[in-house]
């Protein structure tokens, strides 16, 4: 098995950090791509973040009520060796900064 980590994605609107309100998954859970994994709050709103891929949760990198910065590690998945190199892109924002908060999934699928 291999591990893939994901960082807190860019939430748009120039936001640089977010507070983890509630984890919606636990270590050991199998998570589908797109399923909500964590609820975070910015100065603008509170939102669910979707899982960027399917996998088994290996580690959560922040405690509830902890502030984390965009780009800091958020979650690590355990995935089969043969799929580790295929996906694993951090969800990208559009090149043009958008004002509304929307977290996008990568287009690829495993």
């Amino acid at each position: 098995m291999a591990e893939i980590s994901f960082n807190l994605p860019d939430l748009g609107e120039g936001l640089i950090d977010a507070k983890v309100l509630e984890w919606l998954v636990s270590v050991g859970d199998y998570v589908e791509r797109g399923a909500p994994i964590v609820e975070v709050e910015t100065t603008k709103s509170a939102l669910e973040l979707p899982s960027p891929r399917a996998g088994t949760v290996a580690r959560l990198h922040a405690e509830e009520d902890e502030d984390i910065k965009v780009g800091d590690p958020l979650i690590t998945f355990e995935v089969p060796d043969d799929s580790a190199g295929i996906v694993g892109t951090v969800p990208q924002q559009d090149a043009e900064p958008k004002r509304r908060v929307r977290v996008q999934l990568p287009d690829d699928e495993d």
Partner: protein
Amino acid sequence: MEERVAAGDGTEIAYTWQPGERPVLLLHGFATTPELTWETSGVSRALREAGRGVLAVTLRGHGTSGKPTGAARYSARILADDATTVLDAAGVDRVDVVGHSLGSRVAWAFAQSSADRVGRLVLSGVGTREVFEGWSLGAVRALLRDGEPMADETATRLLTGAMALPGADPDALLAVVEGMSGSELAGRAAGPTLVVAGSEDALAADADVLADAIGADFAAVPKRSHLNLLSSRAFKQILLQFLT
């Protein structure tokens, strides 16, 4: 996909209709959008996953809906009539209704005027006090037009956030505040009704008193505020349970 329909006074009302069983009408709060209130918070997703249809209205004066100016074009009754227009346009006869904050006042007005079209009603983030009533219109105008902070910090934060949203129109927002100011949430619930509020929600601090007054059930979500109630797992559980 977003659809549009003209209300009786010609104002275009934007809405999205995601078909499903036993549709739920969603009415967002002041100075926000259905996207920010229901989509990113995961409320729509939770409803869809439960098989429910989701009909989300963009209140006039907000987002991509029409923005007439003048307070006379905004009242709980007028905004509730917009909801009726949207139901008719979407071909939906009967709904459960969920409102948040100002949207709860609209939801109440809708349930009172269209009791035959409403099943269950959820009012979140409201108490007995209508928030705009405490705001000076002059101060609201100065903030919206010139960015001058108000003495009331909550008001300043709400309105500053409102102006940062796409499509924000200072004159329309001012008209919303003036038109909705003092709108009463009074009378008795016509059907099963739930008032729900975060325990840290200063704008809904006496939500339990409101629930008693209108004959509704009450639920509190610990540690949650006006702005992060809807995204919480607890809120979605309470919502789905009540709407089942």
